[in-house]
């Protein structure tokens, strides 16, 4: 099955890149904070000290890029988990209880949708200083709305499905209906949606970092590296190209992974 191959290829790539990000800084003799003003904007070389070159302050870009990937992935995964937990719980309750509870809960979501969220996140960043933790919360707070809508819609249709009615008729308890009949059938769409939320979160984080609102120096992320690279673009294009390419690859892989997983779950659900 072609969907399965997509999942394998992109999954392997993402795993490899994560491992490299975790192990890479160990192997390299450099670290990500030490500046060396004698060696600024050194070009990348496989045989030399700096595999990805150095930045405007002479810091090793390989280690900084690996470090940036760590931060970016961490933000993305944690933000997605935040949206997963809030979104699934909220959506499932609204969908399963239904009626007035559902109407009130979903109108609240509609209202939150109406807020200009990027603006809201920027405000948060400005008011509470730049706080690493806050980025997770802010991004998660954007993404759970979509998740809640999707899960609610799915739960609403599952609740009316005949196998749920059959369970009711035989006397299966509500708790068992929720955990054994409805939840497992939500898993597919939730997993797919989470893999599609991760690239969104990465994009938002990169965007914030690019604006200078993300992680703080000497910490870095892919977005912050791209931002720094843009400033050196004319003298040292590698400083932009390397993190930008990696960012694009990671985003693409997550998107393909999500699509591949969707095909996989679709094939299992429909005969």
């Amino acid at each position, binding site marked *: 099955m072609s969907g399965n191959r997509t999942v394998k290829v992109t999954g392997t790539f993402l795993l490899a890149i994560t491992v490299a990000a975790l192990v890479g800084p160990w192997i390299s003799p450099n670290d990500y904070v030490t500046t060396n003003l004698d060696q600024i904007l050194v070009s990348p070389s496989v045989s030399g000290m700096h595999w990805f070159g150095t930045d405007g302050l002479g810091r090793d870009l390989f280690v900084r890029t690996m470090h940036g990937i760590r931060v970016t992935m961490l933000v993305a995964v944690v933000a997605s988990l935040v949206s997963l937990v809030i979104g699934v719980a909220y959506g499932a309750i609204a969908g399963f209880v239904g009626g007035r509870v559902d109407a009130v809960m979903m109108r609240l979501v509609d209202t939150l949708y109406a807020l200009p969220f990027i603006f809201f996140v920027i405000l948060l960043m400005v008011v509470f200083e730049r706080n690493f933790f806050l980025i997770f919360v802010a991004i998660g707070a954007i993404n759970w709305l979509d998740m809640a809508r999707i899960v609610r819609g799915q739960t609403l249709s599952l609740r009316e499905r005949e196998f749920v009615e*059959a369970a009711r008729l*035989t*006397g299966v308890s509500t708790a068992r209906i929720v955990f*054994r*009949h409805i939840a497992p*059938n939500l898993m597919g769409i939730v997993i797919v949606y989470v893999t599609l939320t991760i690239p969104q979160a990465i994009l938002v984080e990169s965007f914030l970092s690019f604006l200078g609102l993300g992680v703080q120096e000497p910490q870095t992320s892919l977005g912050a590296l791209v931002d720094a690279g843009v400033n050196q673009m004319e003298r040292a294009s590698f400083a932009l190209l390397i993190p930008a390419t990696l960012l694009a690859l990671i985003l693409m892989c997550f998107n393909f992974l999500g699509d591949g997983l969707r095909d996989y779950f679709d094939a299992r659900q429909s*005969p």
Partner: protein
Amino acid sequence: MSLLDVTGLKIRYGEDTVVDGVDLYIERGESVGLVGESGSGKSQSALAILGLLPKHARVEGSIEFDGQQLLGAGEEKLNTIRARRIGMVFQDPMQALNPYLRVGTQLKQIILSHGLAEKAEATTRAIEMLAKVGLPDPERQFRAYPHQLSGGMRQRAMIASALIAEPDLLIADEPTTALDVTVQAQILDLLEDIRDNTALLLITHDLGIVAGYCEHMIVLERGRVVDAGPTTSLFAAPGHAHTRTLIAAAPRVDRGDVPAPVSASTILSVGDVAIDYDELHAVSDVNFSVRKGETVAVVGESGSGKSSLVRAVLGLVPMARGRVVYSGDTLEGPVQSRSLEMRRDLQLVFQDPVGALNPQMRVQTIVEEPLLVHEPALSASERRGRAAAMLDKVGLEEKFLRRYPHELSGGQAQRVAIARALILDPKILICDEAVAALDGTVRAQVLNLLRDVQAETGLSIIFISHDLAVVRSISHRVLVMYMGRLVEVADNENLFAAPAHPYTQALIRSVPVPDPVVAPGRAPLLGEVPSLFSPPAGCVFHPRCPKADATCADTAPTLRDLGGSRVACHHPNN
């Protein structure tokens, strides 16, 4: 030379061969029925003729239409043939008609794109065609959008668009499967009357339709032609075992063994039940009872309220009025509030076997689940044993316990659903169109299974169906519903031998009999079931009733005892 000459047609998808060497010929003006069960390749063959198969299908062989090779022909050439020389009618007209265009516009497009008439004349031609297919007020239908038409009217509009270019061949793929039986009879009559010299390739699973309307028939099994010839001679002397099996499995409404009547105590009685969905009165004042070991069939067309009625008995929809008494206890409230014992005794089998099974659970978990609730003391191995024994009873081997629903065929899935319903040893089993989605041979097996279980355990069955031929073969007693009301209640033998209500008569006469010797009559009823939002005054059936008079138009009849049957009609047939 034949009009259509298909030889050695093979269709493959990757490793799967769905059509494996089909030959078929159609002469001008001839009607040919292509029959087979699901997966036999009948629709695939038709799509291949039209060049409508998906791109990844690999097609071999030869398809000659009027001397031209269609296989491998370019889109441009096919477009001069499709609609112009070969018309098509599909099962679901809603998918074949463009929802954004008025019916008339779609007809005009065909006329104009094939240069059959000038713009001014095209409108007149289209309106004439709509009148010809029996649409009332054709000028208005010309301006209507497809969703504004009823199912039967939509299929008429579809036929109009298929025939407007006066093609040489009409391909109809299950054209009446989605329609009620009285409307089906009208559409089949229309196809017969209107096609003049147009040849017809009719694809259907229903042998009754082939027997009544096709001169020749071709039987497909797993992508191969197993039998072909004149319909009368094939029915009289089937050449292949599969044809014999199909004919034997097709139930007949005109004859049948009447199940021995049961005379035991009443187990369920339903009194004056009414169900409203807001303003819509889905079911009004229905009374009936079920005896122990008896099969009571509830028949009626769509909107008759038969599903609502049993769902109310089960507590899945609320009743507006009325009382349901089961073994002396009143059943009330939604199913969640009923006691476990009561829930145990009434079980339901759904129409769609796949939708009724949780796709994420193995068959073992599905069948065992009721035991977890009702017999929590059982050990895991005892439960497994009971589940395996139950599967054995419904004719499935133990290995099926490990399967997921998507690994089952329709018939296997329905057996699993029946196993789940029967594992608690219920007293009443409600089957809501439980065999409607199954192929003929599988349907016959499931019906036998139900009969066997009933003989063994004295189970009572409420059998909801729109298919009177099936009802005749399984039920002891029949309730006929129309627009939420009971119109006739009678024993099987009485009902089919001497139907008293005009609607019952019409229903029975509308069912095609799988026997070419029995000539199909004309469709006994005109029009379609009116909207439940504005039911006719008086007797709800009077606008369609051949016997209606002034009394019928203003007084609603009540159920009267006529000795042997209860009938709600002012002019019953003795």
